[in-house]
């Protein structure tokens, strides 16, 4: 009995020491992450990976490394870590978890299309974990929204809601907003060009670029007035020398500006609309 009492704790101590030595660097790295010292944490995760290349939990260490790199704003090391984590993962569920972190990383770095691709790959071979699938559908939906694929996003969001009555109701409300793309403010580039062709600067003002519009109006107005004076006084040579080059420079430039501002306005409006939908979706997930 005494022998048993002495041997068992020692055996446990022996095993726990061995386990400690395996995960010591990961523990230190985790502590650094909690303290916000991501740089030191990344080094310790690397150290563990180097010292224990055959560790069975290496996929999880590389995932932690990828998350630390992502939070430190290091895209390439994060992608490399997630790629290695996928390679080292031992089960479809582990692989799916890493892919979700990878997709989130693409979203964080404003790469929604890449994020969607990663999720499509995951959804093509479902790991059999309903919670992971739910997250994958949510990320794919957000990726579609952020890349302005208004027709693709509802499908993923409905899949995310699944059979949960409350989520279904909220999702349908959200989808109704997404489907009504006419609520996104829009400025027609053609209309902007025509406006600026008739009254220089008007197209820019239509797109909300008041300063550029007024500047264009003043400059082109003065130029046209000057040309009119020359026509009135029959100064044809002066008109040709001064007027025509000026038309090509300022008037045509005014048309180009009108088109560019309309396109920029539409891009901003789409981004703002997508951000608002994603914000509402995030609130639903709280």
């Amino acid at each position: 009995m005494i022998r048993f009492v002495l041997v068992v704790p020692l055996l446990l101590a022996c095993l726990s020491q061995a386990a400690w030595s395996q995960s010591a660097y990961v523990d230190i790295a985790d502590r650094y992450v909690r303290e916000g010292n991501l740089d030191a944490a990344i080094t310790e995760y690397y150290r563990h990976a180097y010292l224990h290349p055959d560790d069975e939990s290496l996929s999880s260490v590389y995932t932690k490394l990828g998350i630390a790199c992502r939070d430190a704003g290091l895209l390439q090391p994060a992608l490399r870590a997630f790629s290695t984590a996928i390679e080292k993962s031992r089960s479809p569920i582990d692989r799916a978890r890493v892919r979700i972190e990878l997709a989130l990383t693409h979203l964080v770095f404003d790469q929604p299309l890449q994020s969607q691709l990663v999720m499509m790959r995951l959804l093509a071979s479902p790991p059999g974990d309903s919670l992971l699938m739910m997250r994958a559908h949510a990320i794919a939906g957000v990726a579609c929204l952020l890349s302005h694929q208004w027709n693709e996003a509802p499908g993923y969001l409905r899949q995310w809601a699944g059979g949960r009555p409350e989520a279904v109701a909220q999702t349908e409300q959200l989808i109704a907003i997404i489907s009504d793309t006419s609520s996104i403010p829009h400025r027609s580039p053609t209309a902007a060009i025509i406006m600026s062709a008739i009254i220089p600067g008007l197209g820019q003002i239509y797109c909300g670029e008041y300063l550029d519009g007024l500047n264009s109006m003043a400059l082109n107005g003065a130029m046209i007035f000057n040309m009119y004076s020359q026509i009135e006084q029959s100064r044809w040579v002066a008109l040709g020398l001064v007027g025509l080059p000026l038309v090509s420079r300022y008037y045509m430039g005014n048309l180009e500006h009108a088109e560019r501002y309309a396109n920029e306005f539409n891009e901003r409006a789409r981004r703002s609309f997508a951000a608002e939908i994603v914000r509402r979706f995030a609130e639903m997930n709280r």
Partner: protein
Amino acid sequence: MSAILRPFSAALIAVLMACAAVPASSQQSDAMSDDRILGFASYLEGLGEYRRAATELERLLARGLSNTDSLTLRIGSLYIRADAHGLAERAAREQLTQPGLSLRPQLQYLLSHALYRQQRFDEASEQLSVLIAEVRSSDTSTVNYKAPLLAALCKAEQRRWDDARADLSLAEIAARSGEQKAAVAGLKVVIDESAALPQKSPFIAGLLSGILPGAGKVYTGHTLDGVLSFLTIAGFGYAAYDGFASDGSSSVRGWIFGSLAGGLYLGNIYGSALSASIVRDEATRQLQLRLRTGFAIAGAP
């Protein structure tokens, strides 16, 4: 207690205690052994994590090993690859204060390189001229080939073309292999081409546009822009003159076109200076790209 424990139990406990103590202490010390740290640094270097690799090697340096010169060179080289040029400079300077250095020329070269990468060309040139004088007679080190190349690079960055060519001649003398000689010859071409790159002064561009509107833009290579600027300002100026000539100083047309012409005239001066500045920056970027590519091909820095 000794009365309770029988010999078998005591032996088992001893074995288990040893077993419990060994994994933690030996694995920990093994992980921190010099070889493991060197291996880990190489692993990080292979991943492109140069700065982390250098930091690991600094651990070894702090242990006061015998081969600190070569270790410092490796640390410096890693810091340079990580664009941490100040840290490379610090590592080289600290090592150069140590007595009995076996790789002093290489460390001096590292210091010069770090200074060059921080665009401290005068300091780098000064270091290199001392180094070149010291290693000129040496046949064993590649520094006697690389130092004049780096010196030429520093001078070319400062657009001291003749000095750069003189340093290249020294590198040509020091070049051992046919490959090195060919590289130096190629670099001479790069230097000559770089010397011909446009160098525009914002002051001259502004001055020219002040004298003749649009002339500054023509000077910076934007001929059409310059001609159109001239026509605009001249056209508005003439319209203002016409207004004042017809209706006197109370002419509304005169004041409107006069104000526009004045505004455009000043804007043109500013625009010409800005254009020259952009052309100059682009030329500098091109110059650096050509020189650095050429020198990298030549094996230095």
